[in-house]
């Protein structure tokens, strides 16, 4: 079959690879209907996530049709249209049982790498390096889905493929940020980043009762999209002082909850950005935490900062003094998709959530490398490119 493979830093190509096979009794094989580019893919494409091997199939946000089921699969049958959580959970370890699915004890096929990097293994994720499970990614004609009874969800009739696709990863990630940050009615919430995850975090904050939601970015099309489709206020950080703007819009207090949805390759127009770029390129720090720093500084005293963006390792100039002296709560997580996906599909079916506007471009699998280039450079208003292996 054809698949999109990582061939080295900033090198992608569509290759012939062996078809996936059932390797465990709880697996299913899914024929891909649609997958999408994700900002976190850019980190591994760019060489910021170690433990990639040339030939690795990437992609982790997808929807498809079940074509084969393992002997122990109970909840799926051939022909089911399913959306699949990007993180794989066994469903029965302590973490899965406590709805912390991305921390699953039993789905990383390379346990030990995470121990060295983070002090503990994470759960496995499709197509996201050998440190994060080593599972083959989804930008292919077929993908093997382990523990499918727990991670694959039937899509309700009436919900179209493109809308449901984003419930695989970006919608639950955004929702989780607002939920675990403890957004409550009356809160003012600021969200850094107007990509798909940031938009969904903003929408979740609104649906959870936030009084005001303010989203921050620099790309005009994304700011306009967030204002129009999400209902959030926006700030163009290239046109104003974000800290001052947030302070004045919140009566001098600062936002109650700050959600960072940018990640390790943050941009900024300040001199600090050059400093961070140099240190990252020299690998003296693995990540550029510009938005995290800004969120910590902007947050009101006693507020909460939630880090949704993907980070790989160590950062410099982390404002620990602000965390301590302002009494902040700082949280972060990779997405616990299984916890939210059924509820999110219901909300999509009920019209409370809209995601189809995120799909600004659609391409066949053969054009996936070009789509990633466009997505990386944010050309042509690209927010997400949907990749359809079937054309």
């Amino acid at each position, binding site marked *: 079959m054809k698949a999109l*493979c990582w061939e*080295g*830093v*900033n*090198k992608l190509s569509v*290759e*012939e*690879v*062996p078809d*996936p*096979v059932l*390797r*465990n*009794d*709880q697996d299913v094989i899914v024929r891909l209907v649609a997958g999408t580019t994700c900002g976190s893919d850019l980190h591994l494409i*760019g*060489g910021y996530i*170690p*433990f*990639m*091997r*040339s*030939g*690795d199939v990437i992609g982790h946000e997808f929807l498809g049709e079940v074509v084969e089921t393992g002997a*122990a699969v109970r909840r799926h049958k051939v022909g089911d249209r399913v959306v699949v959580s990007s993180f*794989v959970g*066994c*469903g*029965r*370890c*302590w973490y899965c*049982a406590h709805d912390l699915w991305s921390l699953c*004890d*039993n*789905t990383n*096929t*390379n*346990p*030990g*790498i995470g*121990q*060295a*990097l983070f002090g503990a293994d994470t759960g*496995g994720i499709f197509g996201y390096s*050998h440190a994060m499970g*080593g*599972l*083959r990614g989804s930008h292919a004609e077929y993908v*093997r889905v*382990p*523990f499918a009874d727990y991670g694959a969800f039937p899509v309700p009739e009436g919900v179209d493929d493109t809308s449901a696709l984003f419930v695989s990863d970006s919608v639950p990630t955004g929702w989780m940020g607002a939920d675990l940050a403890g957004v409550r009615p009356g809160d003012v919430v600021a969200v850094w980043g107007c990509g798909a995850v940031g938009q969904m975090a903003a929408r979740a904050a609104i649906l959870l009762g936030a009084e005001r939601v303010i989203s921050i970015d620099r790309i005009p099309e994304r700011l306009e999209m967030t204002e129009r489709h999400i209902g959030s206020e926006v700030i163009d950080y290239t046109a104003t002082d974000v800290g001052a703007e947030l302070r004045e819009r919140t009566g001098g207090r600062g936002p109650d909850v700050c959600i960072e949805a940018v990640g390790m390759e943050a941009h900024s127009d300040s001199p600090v950005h050059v400093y961070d770029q140099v240190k990252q390129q020299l*690998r003296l720090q693995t990540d550029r935490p510009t938005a995290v720093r800004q969120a910590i500084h902007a947050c009101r005293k006693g507020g909460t900062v939630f880090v949704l963006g993907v980070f790989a390792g160590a950062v410099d100039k982390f404002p620990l003094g602000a965390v301590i002296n302002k009494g902040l709560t700082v949280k972060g997580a990779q997405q616990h998709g299984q916890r939210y996906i059924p509820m999110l599909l219901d909300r999509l079916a009920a019209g409370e959530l809209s995601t189809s506007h995120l799909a600004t471009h659609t391409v066949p699998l053969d054009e996936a490398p070009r789509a990633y280039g466009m997505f990386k450079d944010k050309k042509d208003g690209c927010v997400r490119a949907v990749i359809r292996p079937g054309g």
Partner: protein
Amino acid sequence: MAHGKSLWATAAVLAAGAAVVARRVKARPADPATGDRWLTVTINLGPEEIRPGELPSPLREYGDRIETRIRPAPGDRGTELAVRPRGAVPDSAHSVRARLSGDDPRQDLRRALREAKALLEAGEVLRPDAPPTTHDTPGGKLVGLLGRRAGGEGVL
């Protein structure tokens, strides 16, 4: 630039490899006379559901060569299952060379313990996709080696 990044990525992997060695050296037991330290996992089952004589095959195959200890974990966290080789194990068995070559007996025992946990909790040990890649590079082979070692002994 891409080539430079590739070198840095390889360097990062090598640094991780160095961390492997350093951690493993530090991981030696302080007092060989007391035998190897216990290797432990926490299983999300009640103590009554884990019987020493009925452990899954990866551990059962060790038979009398290991000691087993089972006790409730604090709070609602399940049950701690601990194992260690019975009797003294020579220091050389845990040498850096033995660890890098995958010959340290702790590595296989840790792997068996992890697999027992997966079998008890999830009913199966998740197998990686195969083949791991269709073509390989030196950096990829190194990642593959680290991956093969990763299941042993709990930390790289």
